[in-house]
């Protein structure tokens, strides 16, 4: 069992303006997000003494600080922080891994008020382009065959799942439509004002079978931020705290194959889920709402199975009939996730889970939400699972 329950809380969250291509540069969006998170908590910039991020960029070229990436060195220098004593930057696992590190640091007293942000810039041109005439490293066994497109790579485990269990795009349409319905209740979401129908999804353009455009999160310019502190300090602040119950990590394991596989995904997601429940002593029945990473639409289905909400091979049927809707058995991705909010590498999942236990999700609020689960990242490339709770004495 993990020794961390109710020691740390998220006390503020904030989004920048998010759009397909912003007129503001990325550092200005980070200022917006962090400023709003601090306001939410009733804190000021000078109180920040710990900072953390996952500074990935969407493109494959070198990154330009302040333009397509905002890393910790740039942040510390430009935000004029005078009291920094702890910081971390991770290159694996999205914001999920980073948040776990922040939780540990705050619990240990290494930082009193820590800010974690994720900034993403949408480069001009087509996403995921492999623009090279040579294929080094692991790509030598895949890129010469035209398997370098991110979408094609991630399509492989999903193609096997659909074939094994008889899933069709009709099944997935239910998830897509419900997700967009939730998005249309979230003013922070890039697709807030854009509804879609089952027909829109079923007629959607296929990129690499079985994945179509609406199965992928859209690159955007935006940033999200959260502020964390120790539980005893949290109670005195402006916003209701979301207490950290516990967490686990998964991933960084291709399980021996040159490509992603269904078995490889499951080996990692099963382990991440098992460790989460062991670490916290809780289980699926204790969860009131789940935010499951949806960079690709099939991820939440695979994770529902690994987490034990349903059996292997059942998720595409389990999500039918209203189970994942707002009033259902397990409201899922109530903020619209990445599909609704844009490609923001895990912040949509985290911030929505926090806001649900804080009770500030407005029209998307799950009644009596006491425990929210956030999964962030890719099972194979690295992810974090975090449970948030409303009351400190859960």
């Amino acid at each position: 069992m993990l020794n961390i329950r109710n020691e740390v809380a998220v006390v503020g969250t904030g989004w920048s303006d998010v759009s397909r291509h912003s007129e503001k540069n990325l550092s200005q969006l980070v200022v917006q997000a962090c400023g709003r998170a601090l306001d939410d908590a009733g804190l000021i910039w000078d109180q920040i003494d710990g900072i953390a991020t996952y500074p990935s960029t969407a493109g494959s070229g070198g990154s330009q600080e302040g333009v397509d990436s905002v890393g910790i060195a740039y942040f510390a220098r430009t935000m004029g922080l005078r009291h920094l004593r702890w910081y971390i930057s991770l290159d694996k696992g999205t914001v999920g891994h980073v948040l776990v590190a922040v939780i540990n640091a705050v619990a240990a007293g290494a930082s009193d008020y820590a800010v974690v942000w994720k900034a993403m810039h949408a480069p001009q041109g087509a996403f995921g382009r492999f623009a090279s005439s040579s294929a080094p490293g692991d790509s030598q066994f895949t890129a010469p065959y035209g398997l370098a497109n991110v979408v094609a790579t991630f399509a492989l485990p999903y193609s096997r799942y659909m074939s094994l269990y008889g899933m069709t795009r009709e099944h997935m349409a239910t998830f897509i439509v419900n997700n967009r319905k939730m998005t249309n209740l979230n003013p922070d979401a890039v697709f807030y004002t854009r509804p879609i129908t089952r027909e829109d999804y079923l007629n959607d353009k296929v990129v690499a079978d079985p994945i179509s455009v609406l199965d992928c999160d859209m690159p955007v310019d935006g940033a999200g931020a959260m502020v964390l502190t120790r539980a005893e300090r949290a109670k005195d602040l402006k916003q209701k705290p979301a207490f950290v119950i516990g967490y686990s990590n998964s991933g960084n394991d291709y399980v021996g194959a040159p490509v992603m596989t269904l078995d490889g995904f499951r080996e990692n997601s099963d382990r991440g889920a098992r460790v989460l429940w062991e670490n916290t002593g809780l289980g699926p029945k204790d969860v009131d709402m789940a935010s499951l990473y949806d960079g690709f639409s099939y991820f939440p289905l695979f994770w529902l199975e690994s987490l034990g909400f349903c059996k292997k091979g059942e998720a595409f049927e389990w999500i039918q009939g209203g189970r994942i809707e707002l009033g259902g058995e397990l409201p899922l991705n109530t903020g619209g996730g990445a599909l609704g909010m844009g490609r923001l590498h895990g912040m949509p999942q985290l911030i929505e889970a926090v806001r649900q236990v804080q009770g500030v999700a407005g029209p998307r609020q799950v009644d009596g939400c006491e425990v929210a689960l956030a999964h962030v990242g890719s099972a194979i490339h690295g992810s974090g699972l975090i449970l948030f709770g409303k009351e400190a004495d859960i």
Partner: protein
Amino acid sequence: MRQLVRRPLPVPSDLTQPFWDATREHRIVVQHCNTCSTFHHPPVPQCKSCRSVDLGWTQVSGKGEVHEYTIVRSSRVQGMEDSSYAVLAVELDEQPGLLLVGNLVNAGIEAARIGLRVEATFEEIGEDFVLPQFRPAAS
């Protein structure tokens, strides 16, 4: 399948060079642990099963079945933008979970399906490389 032009060329390392040397001779070899007989692809510095560093290379039949696949309809790979093509991950008969990637050749892309039996064939690309590919098995 339409001819794909200007494929990205492999950049072999010390570990992977034997694979590409063999394909030039129209053979497929896979790294093989001399201690416990486990195959590894891509090759590794120590056996994942028994930690032995006594690793060799063994020729395989090139036969297997499609484990996963996708049909790329909107390519992002430089030099391959105009094509639609099937990419297969083939589970070789020699070991469960031993996967080799290839395109489906000698068949329309719609022939691709999980469970399809395939066999290796070889495609020369550039001056220095031969790629293993997969066609539907004869029988």
